[in-house]
Protein backbone atom coordinates (compact mmCIF):
# COMPACT_ATOMS: atom_id res chain seq x y z
CA UNK A 1 0.00 0.00 0.00
CA UNK A 2 1.16 3.57 -0.55
CA UNK A 3 3.12 4.52 2.47
CA UNK A 4 6.32 6.40 2.19
CA UNK A 5 5.29 9.09 -0.28
CA UNK A 6 2.06 10.06 1.32
CA UNK A 7 -1.19 8.40 0.31
CA UNK A 8 -2.65 11.13 -1.87
CA UNK A 9 0.37 11.58 -4.07
CA UNK A 10 0.82 7.87 -4.56
CA UNK A 11 -2.84 7.46 -5.38
CA UNK A 12 -2.75 10.27 -7.92
CA UNK A 13 0.34 8.80 -9.54
CA UNK A 14 -1.28 5.43 -9.82
CA UNK A 15 -4.38 6.99 -11.39
CA UNK A 16 -2.23 8.81 -13.91
CA UNK A 17 -0.39 5.62 -14.74
CA UNK A 18 -3.65 3.79 -15.14
CA UNK A 19 -5.15 6.40 -17.45
CA UNK A 20 -2.04 6.58 -19.53
CA UNK A 21 -2.02 2.85 -20.09
CA UNK A 22 -5.76 2.74 -20.72
CA UNK A 23 -5.40 5.34 -23.44
CA UNK A 24 -2.46 3.54 -24.99
CA UNK A 25 -3.83 0.02 -24.74
CA UNK A 26 -7.06 1.08 -26.35
CA UNK A 27 -5.09 1.64 -29.54
CA UNK A 28 -2.88 -1.43 -29.08
CA UNK A 29 -5.98 -3.60 -28.86
CA UNK A 30 -7.03 -2.50 -32.34
CA UNK A 31 -4.32 -4.78 -33.67
CA UNK A 32 -2.72 -4.39 -37.07
CA UNK A 33 -4.80 -2.54 -39.65
CA UNK A 34 -4.93 -4.34 -43.03
CA UNK A 35 -3.07 -1.48 -44.60
CA UNK A 36 0.09 -2.27 -42.63
CA UNK A 37 -0.20 -6.03 -42.76
CA UNK A 38 -0.40 -5.76 -46.52
CA UNK A 39 2.49 -3.34 -46.74
CA UNK A 40 4.79 -5.66 -44.85
CA UNK A 41 3.58 -8.73 -46.67
CA UNK A 42 4.16 -7.13 -50.05
CA UNK A 43 7.70 -6.18 -49.25
CA UNK A 44 8.43 -9.64 -48.03
CA UNK A 45 7.77 -11.42 -51.29
CA UNK A 46 10.40 -10.72 -53.92
CA UNK A 47 8.53 -9.07 -56.76
CA UNK A 48 7.84 -11.60 -59.49
CA UNK A 49 9.55 -10.68 -62.69
CA UNK A 50 6.78 -9.27 -64.90
CA UNK A 51 8.32 -11.01 -67.91
CA UNK A 52 7.72 -14.41 -66.38
CA UNK A 53 4.01 -14.91 -66.60
CA UNK A 54 3.88 -17.85 -64.24
CA UNK A 55 5.64 -17.65 -60.91
CA UNK A 56 6.04 -21.32 -60.29
CA UNK A 57 9.48 -22.59 -59.49
CA UNK A 58 11.95 -19.86 -58.59
CA UNK A 59 14.61 -21.85 -60.41
CA UNK A 60 12.81 -21.12 -63.65
CA UNK A 61 14.24 -17.69 -63.90
CA UNK A 62 17.82 -18.90 -64.09
CA UNK A 63 18.11 -20.97 -67.23
Amino acid at each position, binding site marked *: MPGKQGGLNAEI*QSRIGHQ*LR*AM*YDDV*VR*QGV*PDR*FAELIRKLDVPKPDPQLGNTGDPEDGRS
Partner: protein
Amino acid sequence: MPLTDSLRDDILASVPSLRAFAISLSGNGDRADDLVQETLLRALANIDSFQPGSNLPAWLFTILRNLFRSDYRKRRREVEDADGNYAKTLKTQPAQNAHLEFEEFRAALDKLPQDQREALILVGASGFSYEDAAAICGCAVGTIKSRVNRARSKLSALLYVEGADDFGPDDTVRAVIGGSGG
Protein backbone atom coordinates in the same frame (compact mmCIF):
# COMPACT_ATOMS: atom_id res chain seq x y z
CA MET B 1 20.31 -8.35 -41.41
CA PRO B 2 18.13 -9.53 -44.29
CA LEU B 3 14.37 -9.47 -43.95
CA THR B 4 13.60 -12.95 -42.70
CA ASP B 5 10.14 -14.30 -42.01
CA SER B 6 10.62 -14.05 -38.29
CA LEU B 7 11.88 -10.50 -38.49
CA ARG B 8 8.88 -9.60 -40.60
CA ASP B 9 6.60 -11.16 -37.99
CA ASP B 10 8.34 -9.20 -35.26
CA ILE B 11 7.88 -5.94 -37.16
CA LEU B 12 4.24 -6.77 -37.69
CA ALA B 13 3.86 -7.51 -33.98
CA SER B 14 5.23 -4.06 -33.18
CA VAL B 15 2.67 -2.23 -35.30
CA PRO B 16 -0.05 -1.94 -32.62
CA SER B 17 2.27 -0.29 -30.12
CA LEU B 18 3.86 1.88 -32.82
CA ARG B 19 0.38 3.17 -33.59
CA ALA B 20 -0.38 3.79 -29.95
CA PHE B 21 2.87 5.70 -29.60
CA ALA B 22 2.22 7.71 -32.75
CA ILE B 23 -1.30 8.62 -31.65
CA SER B 24 -0.09 9.57 -28.18
CA LEU B 25 2.52 11.84 -29.71
CA SER B 26 0.49 13.45 -32.43
CA GLY B 27 -3.00 13.34 -30.97
CA ASN B 28 -4.31 12.66 -34.45
CA GLY B 29 -5.24 9.24 -35.75
CA ASP B 30 -4.80 9.88 -39.46
CA ARG B 31 -1.48 11.53 -39.03
CA ALA B 32 -0.40 8.79 -36.67
CA ASP B 33 -1.06 6.12 -39.27
CA ASP B 34 0.90 8.08 -41.85
CA LEU B 35 3.75 8.20 -39.38
CA VAL B 36 3.56 4.46 -38.82
CA GLN B 37 3.51 3.81 -42.54
CA GLU B 38 6.56 5.96 -43.11
CA THR B 39 8.29 4.30 -40.18
CA LEU B 40 7.70 0.86 -41.64
CA LEU B 41 8.94 1.90 -45.07
CA ARG B 42 12.08 3.40 -43.58
CA ALA B 43 12.66 0.39 -41.40
CA LEU B 44 12.28 -2.03 -44.28
CA ALA B 45 14.48 0.07 -46.52
CA ASN B 46 17.19 0.16 -43.84
CA ILE B 47 16.72 -3.32 -42.51
CA ASP B 48 20.37 -4.12 -43.22
CA SER B 49 21.40 -1.68 -40.53
CA PHE B 50 19.36 -3.46 -37.88
CA GLN B 51 21.59 -5.49 -35.57
CA PRO B 52 20.26 -9.02 -35.11
CA GLY B 53 19.45 -9.67 -31.49
CA SER B 54 19.12 -6.02 -30.56
CA ASN B 55 15.87 -4.46 -29.43
CA LEU B 56 13.61 -4.29 -32.49
CA PRO B 57 10.77 -2.29 -30.90
CA ALA B 58 13.27 0.28 -29.62
CA TRP B 59 14.77 0.55 -33.10
CA LEU B 60 11.35 1.08 -34.68
CA PHE B 61 10.28 3.56 -32.01
CA THR B 62 13.46 5.54 -32.62
CA ILE B 63 12.65 5.82 -36.31
CA LEU B 64 9.08 6.89 -35.60
CA ARG B 65 10.11 9.38 -32.99
CA ASN B 66 12.65 11.00 -35.29
CA LEU B 67 10.16 11.19 -38.11
CA PHE B 68 7.63 12.79 -35.81
CA ARG B 69 10.21 15.27 -34.59
CA SER B 70 11.22 16.45 -38.03
CA ASP B 71 7.62 16.51 -39.17
CA TYR B 72 6.55 18.36 -36.05
CA ARG B 73 9.08 21.07 -36.57
CA LYS B 74 7.61 21.66 -39.99
CA ARG B 75 4.00 21.81 -38.99
CA ARG B 76 4.07 23.09 -35.43
CA ARG B 77 0.52 23.13 -34.19
CA GLU B 78 -0.96 23.24 -37.64
CA VAL B 79 -3.39 20.54 -36.70
CA GLU B 80 -5.35 21.67 -33.72
CA ASP B 81 -8.32 19.34 -33.74
CA ALA B 82 -6.53 16.70 -31.76
CA ASP B 83 -9.43 15.84 -29.47
CA GLY B 84 -12.02 15.12 -32.09
CA ASN B 85 -9.74 13.08 -34.25
CA TYR B 86 -8.36 11.10 -31.41
CA ALA B 87 -11.79 10.11 -30.19
CA LYS B 88 -12.63 8.87 -33.67
CA THR B 89 -9.77 6.40 -33.61
CA LEU B 90 -11.25 4.60 -30.65
CA LYS B 91 -13.13 1.49 -31.45
CA THR B 92 -14.93 1.29 -28.16
CA GLN B 93 -16.39 4.58 -27.05
CA PRO B 94 -15.97 4.84 -23.30
CA ALA B 95 -19.08 5.49 -21.23
CA GLN B 96 -20.00 9.14 -20.76
CA ASN B 97 -18.24 9.76 -17.46
CA ALA B 98 -15.19 7.79 -18.36
CA HIS B 99 -15.14 9.58 -21.67
CA LEU B 100 -15.10 12.98 -20.03
CA GLU B 101 -12.31 11.92 -17.73
CA PHE B 102 -10.47 10.55 -20.72
CA GLU B 103 -10.78 13.82 -22.64
CA GLU B 104 -9.50 15.73 -19.65
CA PHE B 105 -6.56 13.42 -19.42
CA ARG B 106 -5.76 13.83 -23.10
CA ALA B 107 -6.01 17.58 -22.86
CA ALA B 108 -3.65 17.58 -19.90
CA LEU B 109 -1.22 15.32 -21.71
CA ASP B 110 -1.24 17.70 -24.67
CA LYS B 111 -0.18 20.52 -22.39
CA LEU B 112 3.07 18.84 -21.47
CA PRO B 113 6.24 19.87 -23.25
CA GLN B 114 6.98 17.37 -25.98
CA ASP B 115 10.14 16.06 -24.31
CA GLN B 116 8.23 15.21 -21.18
CA ARG B 117 5.26 13.75 -22.98
CA GLU B 118 7.29 11.32 -25.04
CA ALA B 119 9.38 10.26 -22.04
CA LEU B 120 6.27 9.59 -19.98
CA ILE B 121 4.63 7.59 -22.76
CA LEU B 122 7.69 5.49 -23.47
CA VAL B 123 8.23 4.58 -19.84
CA GLY B 124 4.71 4.69 -18.46
CA ALA B 125 2.72 3.23 -21.34
CA SER B 126 5.01 1.49 -23.83
CA GLY B 127 6.84 -0.21 -20.99
CA PHE B 128 10.39 0.63 -22.06
CA SER B 129 13.12 0.74 -19.46
CA TYR B 130 14.66 4.12 -18.69
CA GLU B 131 17.73 2.93 -20.60
CA ASP B 132 15.76 2.05 -23.72
CA ALA B 133 13.78 5.27 -23.54
CA ALA B 134 17.03 7.22 -23.27
CA ALA B 135 18.39 5.45 -26.33
CA ILE B 136 15.19 6.15 -28.27
CA CYS B 137 15.27 9.85 -27.38
CA GLY B 138 19.03 10.16 -27.76
CA CYS B 139 19.63 11.51 -24.27
CA ALA B 140 21.01 10.44 -20.91
CA VAL B 141 19.15 8.08 -18.61
CA GLY B 142 19.06 10.75 -15.90
CA THR B 143 17.44 13.15 -18.33
CA ILE B 144 14.68 10.67 -19.07
CA LYS B 145 14.08 10.09 -15.38
CA SER B 146 13.72 13.77 -14.65
CA ARG B 147 11.47 14.30 -17.67
CA VAL B 148 9.20 11.50 -16.52
CA ASN B 149 9.08 12.92 -13.01
CA ARG B 150 8.30 16.40 -14.23
CA ALA B 151 5.64 15.04 -16.55
CA ARG B 152 3.98 13.18 -13.70
CA SER B 153 3.94 16.09 -11.34
CA LYS B 154 2.69 18.45 -14.00
CA LEU B 155 -0.11 16.06 -14.91
CA SER B 156 -1.16 15.65 -11.33
CA ALA B 157 -1.17 19.43 -10.92
CA LEU B 158 -3.26 19.86 -14.06
CA LEU B 159 -5.71 17.10 -13.29
CA TYR B 160 -6.04 17.03 -9.56
CA VAL B 161 -5.02 20.40 -8.20
CA GLU B 162 -5.89 22.97 -10.83
CA GLY B 163 -9.20 21.16 -11.23
CA ALA B 164 -10.25 22.63 -7.90
CA ASP B 165 -10.58 26.00 -9.63
CA ASP B 166 -13.48 24.65 -11.62
CA PHE B 167 -15.56 24.74 -8.49
CA GLY B 168 -14.81 28.33 -7.65
CA PRO B 169 -17.58 30.64 -6.46
CA ASP B 170 -18.12 32.31 -9.83
CA ASP B 171 -21.08 30.29 -11.03
CA THR B 172 -22.88 30.38 -7.72
CA VAL B 173 -22.29 34.06 -7.23
CA ARG B 174 -23.39 34.79 -10.76
CA ALA B 175 -26.55 32.78 -10.27
CA VAL B 176 -27.43 34.63 -7.09
CA ILE B 177 -26.74 38.03 -8.56
CA GLY B 178 -28.51 37.18 -11.79
CA GLY B 179 -31.52 35.85 -9.91
CA SER B 180 -31.97 39.00 -7.88
CA GLY B 181 -32.86 40.91 -11.01
CA GLY B 182 -31.27 44.28 -10.22
